[in-house]
């Protein structure tokens, strides 16, 4: 039964040809069934997403060029967009969003430091990790409920300041336009600590410990290692958390604003997402709401496209 080396490939080839000929119809039938099953099984998700997310996006684009009260829509045309660019309220609202973006580096920097501390694996670090991550489970409504009392004139912050001898400077942070936005930004940063810390901690766990060891042998201090070794290797994780934080800053603050400031004082804390609610719900200008919705969607789409590039769909490892 032994074959010479020269014979072996020829035998194998003819065997495979034979097998191919015999099973070809069965195989293609199987492939056809597989494709059909694939289409059937993916259909519900596709239908749900198209009906409840895709279609309304199209409608929002259409209604953004109309005057709409929910029942009748009067066509105006693309001129709504040029009018928008000339509208000072629009720029006031966009300015708030832009100012909130200033919180993003802080909402990344603090968790980076916290993750580096946890990554030293001091005794009990797992407990601290759980504690830092806990706010992730809490609704922004509850967080806002506390923040409202924290920043108010008789609140915790002013009590603390008075205790430290700054009693004279007691102010209601939520009463001033800029200080209210700052209070919102601080609350936002606090809320993002858990999520971003976990992302960075996951990143640090993937680092090759020999690199850190080598840097230590080379005489780099802990801080030197953090800046010169750890940070550069975490680039992808920092980009990822940057995108998540920006998306949250634009589209997750509704509850916080609703509970803390209702967008005020004045337009002090009215962001794009909150103005959509105000324009539609309070002023019943649903066309304007749709117009702002399209602007928000475009910003989110840009952030989302960056995010899609950062997460790798074909990487099934890590489970």
């Amino acid at each position, binding site marked *: 039964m032994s074959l010479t080396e020269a014979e072996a490939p020829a035998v194998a080839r003819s065997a495979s040809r034979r097998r191919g000929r015999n099973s070809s119809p069965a195989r293609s039938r199987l492939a056809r069934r*597989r494709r059909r099953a*694939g289409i059937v099984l993916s259909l519900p998700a596709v239908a749900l*997403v198209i009906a409840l997310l895709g279609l309304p996006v199209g409608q929002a684009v259409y209604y953004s060029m109309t005057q709409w009260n929910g029942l009748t829509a009067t066509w105006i045309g693309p001129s709504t967009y040029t009018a928008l660019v000339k509208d000072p309220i629009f720029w006031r609202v966009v300015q708030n969003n832009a100012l909130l973006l200033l919180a993003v580096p802080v909402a990344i920097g603090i968790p980076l430091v916290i993750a580096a501390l946890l990554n030293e694996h001091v005794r009990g670090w797992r407990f601290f990790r759980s504690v830092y991550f806990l706010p992730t489970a809490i609704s922004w409504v509850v967080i806002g409920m506390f923040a409202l009392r924290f920043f108010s004139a008789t609140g915790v912050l002013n009590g603390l300041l008075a205790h430290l001898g700054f009693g004279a400077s007691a102010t209601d942070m939520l009463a001033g336009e800029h200080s209210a936005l700052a209070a919102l930004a601080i609350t936002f940063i606090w809320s993002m600590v858990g999520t971003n810390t976990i992302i960075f901690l996951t990143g640090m766990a993937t680092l090759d410990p020999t690199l850190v060891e080598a840097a230590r042998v080379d005489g780099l201090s802990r801080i030197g290692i953090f800046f010169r070794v750890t940070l550069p290797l975490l680039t992808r994780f920092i980009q990822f958390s940057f995108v998540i934080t920006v998306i949250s800053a634009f589209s997750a603050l509704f509850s916080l604003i609703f509970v803390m400031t209702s967008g005020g004082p004045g337009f002090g804390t009215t962001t794009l997402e909150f103005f*959509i609610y105000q324009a539609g719900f309070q002023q019943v200008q649903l066309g304007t709401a749709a117009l702002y919705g399209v602007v928000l969607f475009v910003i989110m789409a840009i952030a989302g496209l960056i995010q899609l590039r950062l997460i790798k769909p074909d990487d099934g490892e890590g489970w």
Partner: protein
Amino acid sequence: MTTSRATAQLPQRNTMRLRGKITTAALLLTMVIVAVVMLYPFWYIVDNAFRGQGQYDRQSGHSLGGWRQLFANLPVGGQLLNSTVVCVAAIAIILIVSTTAGFAFAKLRYRGSGLVFLLVVSALMVPLQSILFPEFVNLSNVHLTSSYAGAVLVYAALGTPFATFLMATYYRGISDELIEAAVIDGLGYERTFLQIAIPLSLPAIATVTVLQFIQIWDDLLVGLFFLPTNQRTITAGLATLSTGRTTSVPSLMAGSLISAIPAIIVYLIFQRHLVKGLTLGMGK
């Protein structure tokens, strides 16, 4: 230079050990301070939930005054039930459509399935605020905003893109041979999915469930817009209660506490799954 280093070696090792201890102590201290900052709001909420308004103003004394007022102003039990019903129904839909679609995109590829997958996943970037009013008008036109149905569908749609991404990623990790073998053994694709793929993907299903539970339980916007007033979720109920200026702070703190407890319990039990879902796709 060399001789002095040699003689200094022993004390140097001692100082290094001392410095190591100081660093550890400083690290611990910093971590404790951060922990206080992260936990203080919870302490504040618990502390002030058990006060009356007068006790809150004085910041001394405890009672059940806040709770009594909360239960008088808010149908707490009913709203907790509403939250539960909406969560369970929406998560059930999300699990059904995301496991089937995830399996299809990973293992039953057809022409254009890659593009369809991208279409579903890219719906991730649609913020509900952008489509709030078209969505609301659509759903009320088909009479779905007078019951749980509208909110359940909106939550299901919002959760599906990421859940599908997660399930597809998971199913890609299962070997093709295993699936092929099951099909050739006569199970057929549908039963292979139900009897082989589903049991294998329980960890991913757990992750989707936990992530979605916390997201839906904590959400305000959908609960506020797509549910009739008498079927509001606890989070939406609490938020609307807080806009009433006459509501006492202790009753709001009591409401915050009771609305947060289910999410905290789920977090404490399933923390691992939550972390997994949050950082998926970021391995390496």
